[in-house]
C-alpha cells in the first residue's frame, strides 16, 4: 500500500548573492506521513535552506514543494497552519520569561487567553521547564533554550514538524533528553523532517535518511540500506608505526580483500566475512610476531563510513565553520 507523502520537494534550486552561491542545486526529497526523515549533511550542505523553503520563509529560484498537499509557494498561509518549525538557532524572546513566550505564541496561534495559559503550563511541564518558567530566557542554558524553542513549535500539535539541527550545541545529556522528547512526538504520529550533522542522530531517530551535500541529495534509504552500500564488517588494527608493514601483511592474509592503511592514524583495516574468527586469527598472528597492537577490533560500518564513501570526504571536513559565532553567521545570511 502506498502511503501519503506529507512533504514533497522537487528540484529545488536556491542561489544567494545574485547567483554566486548555489545553496540548493536541484534538491528533491519527500517524507511519508507519520515517519521521520533525517536530512544529513555537513556545514553548508543546504539543510537550513531546505527547511526554510519548506516552512515558507524562503522562496526557491525554481522547483516545487508541497507540505500536507499544499503548495508552499502559492499558498504559504495555509501551510503555516499545519506546520511547526524550530530553527537552527533558538528563536524566542530573550527578555521575556519562558512562560511569557509560550503564552504569547499560544495567543498568536489564536488560542483563547485562558487556553493559552493552560497550554503554556502543559508544555513547560512536558519539557521539564516548570522550575524555570518565571525566569527570563536570557538566564537559560543552551539546552533549556532549545527545549523551549521546540515547545513553542508544538503549541497546536502540528501535523508536520521541521527541526533544524535540534541538538547542535547540546551536551551529551541534553542530546539524550532531546532525543527522548522527539521520540515521544513521533510516537504520537507527528511527521518529522529533521536535519542533523550527526550520523548517530539520524541513525537513532530517522526512519529514512537523505544524505545531502552541496545542495543535492546524494543518497537516501534506511540507515541499514545505507550501511549495506559500504559493505559489511571490517577488521581494524591500530599499531605502532614500525609494526604497520607486518600488520598490513597479516590483515591482507586474513581478509583477502582490499586493505586500507591510514599512516597518520596508524590504522590498518580491511573487510572480513568470518566475524569473530577473523579477530581471533589476527590476534594469534600478531602474538606470533610479538606485536602488541594499540587497538584491535571488528567494526560495523557507521554512517560516517557511508558519508565518506559517498562524498569522498568525511562529514567533519568543514567542521571549522561550526565554531563561528552563530550571530556572525546570521548577519552574513541577511
Amino acid at each position, binding site marked *: 500500500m502506498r502511503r501519503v507523502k506529507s512533504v514533497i520537494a522537487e528540484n529545488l534550486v536556491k542561489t544567494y548573492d545574485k547567483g554566486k552561491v548555489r545553496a540548493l542545486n536541484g534538491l528533491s526529497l519527500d517524507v511519508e506521513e507519520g515517519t521521520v526523515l533525517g536530512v544529513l549533511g555537513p556545514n553548508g550542505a543546504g539543510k537550513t535552506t531546505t527547511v526554510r523553503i519548506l516552512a515558507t520563509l524562503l522562496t526557491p529560484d525554481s522547483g516545487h514543494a508541497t507540505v500536507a498537499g499544499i503548495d508552499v509557494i502559492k499558498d504559504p498561509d495555509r501551510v503555516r497552519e499545519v506546520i511547526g518549525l524550530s*530553527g537552527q538557532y533558538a528563536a524566542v524572546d*530573550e527578555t*521575556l*520569561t519562558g512562560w511569557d513566550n509560550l503564552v504569547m505564541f499560544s495567543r498568536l*496561534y489564536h488560542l483563547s487567553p485562558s487556553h493559552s495559559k493552560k497550554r503554556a503550563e502543559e508544555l513547560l511541564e512536558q519539557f521539564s521547564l516548570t522550575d524555570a518558567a518565571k525566569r527570563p530566557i536570557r538566564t537559560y542554558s543552551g539546552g533549556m533554550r532549545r527545549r523551549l524553542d521546540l515547545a513553542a513549535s508544538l503549541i497546536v500539535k502540528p501535523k508536520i514538524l521541521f527541526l533544524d539541527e535540534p541538538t547542535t550545541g547540546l551536551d551529551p545529556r541534553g542530546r539524550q533528553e532531546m532525543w527522548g522528547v522527539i521520540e515521544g512526538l513521533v510516537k504520537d504520529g507527528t511527521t518529522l523532517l529533521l536535519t542533523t550533522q550527526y550520523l548517530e542522530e539520524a541513525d537513532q531517530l530517522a526512519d529514512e535518511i537523505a544524505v545531502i551535500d552541496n545542495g543535492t541529495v546524494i543518497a537516501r534509504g534506511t540507515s541499514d540500506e545505507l550501511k549495506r552500500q559500504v559493505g559489511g564488517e571490517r577488521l581494524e588494527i591500530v599499531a605502532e608505526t614500525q609494526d604497520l608493514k607486518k600488520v598490513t601483511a597479516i590483515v591482507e592474509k586474513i581478509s583477502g580483500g582490499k586493505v586500507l592503511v591510514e599512516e597518520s592514524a596508524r590504522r590498518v583495516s580491511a573487510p572480513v566475512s568470518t566475524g569473530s574468527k577473523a579477530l581471533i586469527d589476527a590476534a594469534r598472528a600478531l602474538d606470533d610476531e610479538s606485536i602488541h597492537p594499540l587497538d584491535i577490533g571488528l567494526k560495523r560500518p557507521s554512517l560516517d563510513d557511508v558519508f565518506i564513501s559517498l562524498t569522498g570526504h568525511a562529514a567533519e571536513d568543514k567542521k571549522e565553520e561550526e565554531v563561528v559565532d552563530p550571530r556572525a553567521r546570521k548577519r552574513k545570511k541577511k
Partner: protein
Amino acid sequence: MKYAVSDSLVITKRQLLQLIRVPEVLIFSTIQPVMFVLLFRYVFGGSISTGIPGVDYVQLLMPGIFVQTVAFTLAGTAVGLAEDMQKGLIDRFRSLPISRAAVVFGRTLGDGALNIVVLSVMGLAGFLVGWRPSSGLFNVVLGFVFLLLFGFSMAWVGVLIGLSVKSARVANAAVFIAVFPLTFLSNAFAPTTGMPKALQYFAEWNPVSTMVAGCRELFGLQNIFGVTANSWPSQNPLEMSLIYMVIIMAIFIPLSVRKYINTASK
C-alpha cells in the same frame, strides 16, 4: 483577516511585557529626554533670547523637546526590529499563521504607546522647571495627542530602517544620521531667524518645525518665523503637520509591510 487586530495587540503586549521584565529600558528612555530638558533649560536658557517679551526660554523649549523626543521614537522601533531579525524571531513570527501586518503594526503601536509614559514624565519635569502652558487643559491634551500621532507615524519610518539594515547597531547609527539634522535644523531649540536665509526655508518647513510650531500654538505661544512667515505651512503649522503625518504613513506603512513580508524571502 479576522485576527489582524488581536494578533497585533499580542505583539504590542509583548513589548509592554518586555518593559516590565527589563524596566531599565523604560527608565533610560525617560531619563534621556528629562536630561535634555534640564540641560537646555539651564545651559542655553540664559543665552538664547526668545524674541518675545515676557516669555522665557523654557516655554519655547518644551514643545521643541517634546517633538524631538517623539521624532526619535523610530530609533526604538528600528533597533527593536533589527534585533528581532538578528535573533531569528522575525522568522519565527513569519512561520506562524498570523496576519502579515501584525508584527509591524503591533510594534509601532507599542512604540507609540511608550511615548505616553515618556511624555508624561517629561511634562512633569518641565513643569518643575517652570513650564506653564497658558492655553487650558483641552489644548494641552490636544497637543499631546498630536505628539503621539507624530511619534506613531515616525515609528513607521523606523520599521523600514530596522528591516533594511543588517544589525541593531547599524540601525541605531542610521537613525541618528537621519533624525539629528532634522531636529536641529528646526525651530525646536533656537529661533530660525538667526540662520542663513536659504536654510530658513528648510528649517521652517521641516516637519519637526511645523510640529513644534503647532504645539507652541496649542500651548498658547506665538511663533516667530523668518523668511517663510507669510507662507501657508507657517501660518497653519497644525494642518501642515497633519498633512506631513498622512504623507509619512501613506508612504511608509505600505513599504514597511511589504518589506516585512518579503524580508527573508529573498
